[in-house]
């Protein structure tokens, strides 16, 4: 049973002459095999800080993060990151971008291109293998980023608002694509978003965070992505009464959180 465990993690920055600023306070989170955990919250609630902790780009001030009982002490190929943007290498074509991580790991050219092609196919990019990344649309660039993240066969995929820069239509299609990739690869996913609808639709577990100090305020278990795999009709799920009721409830929580901390 694979699992990612965040135990009592806090991050604070010292401020000269003042109380330290808490970016995150006492975060406890478990992500298990086949979980799709979505973090949702207003700006400044520490979602990205939490992702950076799990990725190993940042060390917690207190507490610890472990993956399969090994403590995380830095970035590693068992935790792949999909960034919002700017993360592809424009001097490499699509194939070489997808194979980039394998190249770093010393995988020989023919082998890494074979693996890269499998993931290019999974993400539906076969016709664009030789294209420059800057010739692709934003949605296709994100698919390249996801394919690249999958090549190192990580235990968990960390997605930092991967769809935030996409237009609404592309975004809905990309959500379904990511869900199918998740189902087919069986990876754990930690996914950050600003969109309540996206969070509800995609996650198996929803973590609502609130700011100052950044903390987890609510946790929900979600049934909607499973329903999507049964029906294949994303819009119908997003339009059903249960979905809308929960959406409004969570929006209410977020707005209340925000109002409570509006002291600037």
């Amino acid at each position, binding site marked *: 049973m694979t699992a990612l465990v965040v135990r009592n993690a806090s991050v604070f920055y010292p401020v000269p002459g003042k109380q330290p600023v808490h970016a995150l306070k006492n975060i406890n989170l478990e992500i298990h095999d086949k979980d799709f955990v979505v973090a949702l919250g207003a700006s400044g609630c520490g979602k990205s800080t939490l992702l950076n902790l799990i990725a190993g*780009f940042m060390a917690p001030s207190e507490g610890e993060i472990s993956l399969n009982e090994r403590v995380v002490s830095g970035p590693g*190929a068992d935790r792949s990151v999909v*960034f*919002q943007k700017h*993360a592809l290498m*424009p001097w490499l074509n699509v194939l070489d971008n997808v194979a*980039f991580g394998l190249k770093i790991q010393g995988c020989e050219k023919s082998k890494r291109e074979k693996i890269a092609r499998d993931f290019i196919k999974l993400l539906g990019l076969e016709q664009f293998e030789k294209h420059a990344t800057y010739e692709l649309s934003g949605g296709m660039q994100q698919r390249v980023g996801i394919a690249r993240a999958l090549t190192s066969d990580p235990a968990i995929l960390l997605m930092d608002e991967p769809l935030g820069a996409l237009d609404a239509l592309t975004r809905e299609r990309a959500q379904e694509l990511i869900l199918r990739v998740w189902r087919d690869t069986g990876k754990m996913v930690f996914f950050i978003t600003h969109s309540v609808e996206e969070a509800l639709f995609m996650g198996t577990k929803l973590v609502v965070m609130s700011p100052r100090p950044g903390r987890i305020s609510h946790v929900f278990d979600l049934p909607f992505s499973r329903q999507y795999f049964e029906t294949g009709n994303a819009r119908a799920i997003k339009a059903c009464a249960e979905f809308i009721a929960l959406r409004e409830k969570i929006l209410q929580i977020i707005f209340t959180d925000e109002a409570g901390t509006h002291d600037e």
Partner: protein
Amino acid sequence: MSDTRATTGTGLWTGLMKAKPAKPGEIYGVPGQGESLKISAVVIAGLIFVWWYFTYAGLVKPLFLPSPMGVIEAFLGILKDGFTGASFWEHTWVSTLRVFGAFLLACVIGIPLGIAMGMSRVARGVFDPPIEFYRPIPPLAYLPLMIIWFGIDELSKVLLIFLSVLAPMALGARAGVKSAAIEQIHAAYSFGASRWQVIRLVVLPSAMPEIFTAMRVGIGFGWTTLVAAEMVAATSGLGYMVLSASRFLQTPIVIMGIVVIAAIAYAFDHLVRFVERRVVPWKGRA
């Protein structure tokens, strides 16, 4: 109603100040778009014409400004008989070797140095003071030192040019390090990259556009320093040719030398731009 001024009225001034509607395929309001080659050609022809007219009409003495024909004659003369015992091609070849030798050396040392300064606090702390100290000093000022330390042969000449190219190369490469987005660097690290792999596979390629710009600036400094480098104990070279001709008031040769230096520098700049388009086609697009 000052804000409508630019869109109404017909005077020359309003015409110049008005944003022009875009042609198909152009984007409205992009500063300076469109082809400027024809304008440049007309300006060059115009300048030559004015030059020719002033000398033809006798408005300036040939000693101060020889006619275009006079310069061409001087060129053909040197092409045929050489200058102070060396052929035109020898002068050109010697100077080109000095400048490009110094330029290559500056690339080989300056680019890694700049990358190191961008990547490492220690390297920046060590190399920033000396580079910033000597950078603004005119090469002519430290030419005597170079001669005292390194003699009057090729070494001091090439080193003088090298120093003038090194600073812009190092600073360009250092600035280029900042071009890599933190997401690109994080992506590499999360695949388990070493620091060296991050430099080689992410930072250096990202810095290439800035490095090309630095090359264009740097080679310009190299040619600028050439005349100073060939001031002492040179027996050939374009800078030497210009300097000795000026001592004997051979103005046509001075102008010819200047034009030859400009032509080589211009041709090389276009070569670098050509290579740049091949190597970093993504510049400004990603």
